[in-house]
């Protein structure tokens, strides 16, 4: 952990609201990318995002600093997202992949006719159909922007396992997208 992070953490531990807000602002983007990547753009993601930071602040006194704050926060986000996936499995046969934009909607990037074509929507749908263990690795590496090494640290996996899941995950995702594309064309 660098000196700036350590300073923020120390101030947050003393109840400094500005420091807490700074931490939220710093890590909102990777948390948003991770949670929406794993769960899709669903109404719950905002609550899960909030709960991620709430849990971090509750536990920050016990945080030993053996990893970066971001790593710790993303781990919480992944665990909460996985819990939500299990909950959905109990109540639905298949997770919805595209939710209508309501007042709880997380802003989707590139929502314009020029940017958001069928391809991106297919990739998004395909990702939600990928097994969680591959999906998590793809989300961290390709959506949240972590390196392979950082992804391995976050997930507490050997780097070789991360690379293997990345490669198998991308191959599977490509197959899923091809299948979805064929179904779409035949409709």
């Amino acid at each position, binding site marked *: 952990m660098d000196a700036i992070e350590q300073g923020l953490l120390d101030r947050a531990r003393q109840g400094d*609201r500005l420091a*807490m*807000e700074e931490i*939220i*602002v710093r890590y*909102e*983007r990777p948390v*948003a*990318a991770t*949670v*929406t*990547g794993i769960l899709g*753009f669903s109404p719950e*993601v*905002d609550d899960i*995002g*909030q709960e991620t*930071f*709430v849990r971090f*602040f*509750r536990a920050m006194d016990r945080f030993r600093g053996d990893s970066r704050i971001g790593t710790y926060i993303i781990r919480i986000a992944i665990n909460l997202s996985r819990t939500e996936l299990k909950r959905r499995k109990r109540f639905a046969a298949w997770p919805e992949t595209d939710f209508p934009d309501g007042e*709880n*909607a*997380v*802003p*989707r*990037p*590139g929502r314009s006719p020029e*940017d958001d074509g069928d*391809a*991106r929507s297919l*990739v*998004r749908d395909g*990702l939600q159909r990928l097994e969680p263990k591959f999906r998590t690795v*793809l989300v961290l590496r*390709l*959506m*949240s*922007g972590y390196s*392979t090494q950082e992804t391995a640290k976050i997930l507490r996996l050997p780097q070789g396992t991360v*690379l293997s899941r*990345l*490669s*198998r995950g*991308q*191959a599977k*995702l*490509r197959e899923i*997208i091809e299948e979805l594309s064929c179904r779409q064309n035949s409709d």
Partner: protein
Amino acid sequence: MDKRLLRLLVRSLEGTLKKRDRHRLDRALSESEELRRARDEIEAMRRDLAAGAARSFRPGFAGRVLAKIEADRIEDDPQTVHYKRFKAVFRGFALAAFLVLAFLITYNLAHSELVPRNELLYACDQTVGEFLNLPIF
């Protein structure tokens, strides 16, 4: 398509291939249009994933988190905890007292000479026939 080549292809995008594997992949790419198409598709898929990542939650996210923390802090405040415990215990006593009172009232009314039990419960000793022979019919 050879799955091993596909895996090499994906690993090549991570920059983790050994020299020997790199040469093998390059040779395979130069010979196979299918593999080149797969490479283009996977590269496009990776770009779409990166471009499709959410960059933020709904506006005002930080404020909502801090409000939630504040609400939890009040919830966990010892005074609030004691008040809630007191309410729960009081509710139990109030319910028990109500039941005892209801029992006492019913018991007293049932054993009281002022209001016979039958009248209290609207019980009627007449038979159906007697009832139908009443002048009103």
